[in-house]
């Protein structure tokens, strides 16, 4: 028996509407330009918001001081922070600190990130790996790093290895956790489909699991980058003569809140740069990933 479903005239028009609009939008003379302009406005509007919101916060910060809502002792003004940068630049501390800290964070990220990635994949793919590593790493990740500093001094000494060990540990856990969960979270149906098409275990890992888990892995990498920078404050407590963490600790010891905040700003800028860099990496690695949003 055949069922014929007649489409009401209104419904027909409604079904056609999107098609017509798409055709009009793509035409060279007409709304194509409007769309392009909208996209440009959206792009620059986005950047304006990204830059404008922090700028507004800084203006509000300065106004709060001007209106005596707070005092310079409690919260040094942005102008004082800029003076602190001039001081740090003048005595060479800033030029010394940034490369030293980036080197330490980079080395720790490389070691800890690599270890986290490998262990995460191993534990995610094989039950044995999960049984060996997961419980132990889940326990260790809750250990507060500040409590580890004296222990690391005893175990690794007061030279670079103890700093590197601390940053490595800080970078390892976020990448491990995200990789492990991303690999474990791959849709079983995809794997079954792969098997149906005759893919072997390694091929499934390479062609299905790894690409599907990549967004999670990159999120882990993003966290690992941030954590390796944040751990500098702890790592550079011990036998450091340069570094962003050292600058902050030394400023704390010498009652210089302006330099402390200047150091925090450096972290903020590095955070933005990491975010910018990681967006580029994600675009390169995940070209198929759709932008999800409602506006």
């Amino acid at each position, binding site marked *: 028996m055949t069922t014929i479903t007649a489409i009401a005239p209104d419904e027909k028009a409604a079904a056609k509407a999107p098609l017509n609009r798409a055709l009009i939008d793509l035409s060279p003379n007409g709304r194509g330009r409007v769309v392009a302009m909208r996209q440009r406005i959206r792009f620059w509007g986005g950047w304006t918001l990204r830059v404008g919101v922090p700028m507004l916060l800084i203006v509000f910060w300065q106004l709060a001081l001007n209106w005596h809502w707070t005092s310079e002792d409690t919260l040094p003004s942005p102008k004082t922070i800029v003076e602190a940068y001039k001081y740090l630049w003048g005595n060479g501390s800033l030029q010394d600190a940034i490369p030293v800290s980036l080197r330490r964070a980079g080395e720790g990220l490389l070691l800890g990130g690599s270890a986290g990635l490998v262990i995460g994949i191993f534990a995610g793919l094989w039950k044995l790996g999960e049984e060996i590593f997961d419980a132990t790493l889940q326990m260790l990740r809750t250990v507060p790093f500040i409590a580890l500093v004296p222990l690391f001094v005893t175990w690794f000494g007061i030279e670079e290895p103890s700093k590197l060990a601390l940053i490595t540990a800080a970078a390892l856990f976020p990448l491990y956790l995200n990789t492990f969960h991303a690999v474990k979270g791959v849709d079983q149906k995809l794997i079954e489909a792969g098997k149906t098409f005759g893919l072997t275990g390694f091929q499934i890992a390479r062609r299905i699991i790894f690409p599907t888990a990549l967004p999670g892995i990159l999120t882990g990498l993003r966290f690992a980058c941030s954590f390796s920078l944040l751990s500098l404050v702890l790592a550079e407590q011990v036998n450091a003569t340069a570094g962003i963490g050292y600058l902050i600790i*030394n400023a704390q010891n010498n009652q210089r809140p302006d330099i402390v905040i200047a150091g925090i700003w450096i972290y903020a800028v590095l955070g933005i740069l990491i975010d910018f860099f990681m967006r580029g990496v994600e675009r390169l*690695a995940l070209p198929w990933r759709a932008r999800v949003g409602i506006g």
Partner: protein
Amino acid sequence: MISNRKPWRLIRRASAAATTVALAAVVAACGSSGGSTASGASSTGARATGGSGGSSLDLSGVTLKVGYQTADFPALLKASGLFEDTPYKFQIPVIAGPANQLAALYGKQIDVGQTGENTAAFEAANSATPWPADGAPIQGFAVTWTPQAPYPAAVYVTKKSGITSLAGLRGKKIGFNYGGNIYAEYVIALQKGGFALKDVQGVQFPSNQAAANAFLAGSLDAVVTSYSIVKKLVDSGDAIKIADNNTLGIIGGSGWIARTDALKDPAKLAAIKDFYGRLRTFYEKWIPTHEADYEKVLVSQVGQRPDVAKVNWENARHSTFYRIGDPKFLQIQQATVDAAFGYGGLKTNVRSRLGWNYSTVLDGVTTGTTG
């Protein structure tokens, strides 16, 4: 969800991304070679004859590691020029916080550490297992203090709290940090005020700076801290001092601790004696006569504000060594330990002894008198 592109392209893209990240990390890693070596000095001389603790031992193979908690110390020693011709190598790693200093000392990463004068007594009393009677792992061997300092560490109270004496602390919020001289001052202040622990609201902070910040923010009625940190509030009359080291009968000195095995090693001991002989000259002769140099280092290299650097010089120019062999020394340490134990700050009130957790081996060098 999965792209319909060929899988090898995905792998290639992923590999490219991974390589980019790895390369970036390597570039960052290669970005600098500078780093973490502490300030130091060395000499080509082979024998120790300099300093008050001169020795005829060959010290050319000795490297002395003297830990300090703040960056001003190595910078000032360098500026003094008194340590340029040591017949041994030395390093001054800056290690923030007493816990890290002690970890480095117990872990044999440094030979000498800098903490409070009472640390050797507190460590013995707080040890997880009692120290052997015939040999403590660490010994306090020198104490630097500032007997005539115009701005000693003190108990400060806010004017609005209405407190004018120790007795007025009852029921009030008092900030302190645990372990060193500040804690000693806190427990002795409670003892002299005749308080039980429940009579006051003690608020423990992780550092002297954190306690002072809370006081400056108006969150505390009283704080035990250094003048330089609360200077503005005190100078404006919004905070007043009700007791200090002198009135509480505390030395309030900086304690130097060494591993016992370092003090027993003749070459290392000779190097320590030489170093502390020079340090005595630094404290007693160089600092009082070099105000401008001292403050310049603190301002330009360490980052202190000129007014804070001035206060620190005013205190530091009175620096000298306290004789550990002085009978009063152990009495004061024991009184602090007993008070801390009474207020629950220590596990035991084990008695400190010369030759056990304190040593007089450097008294001759640091004070010119022994016994």
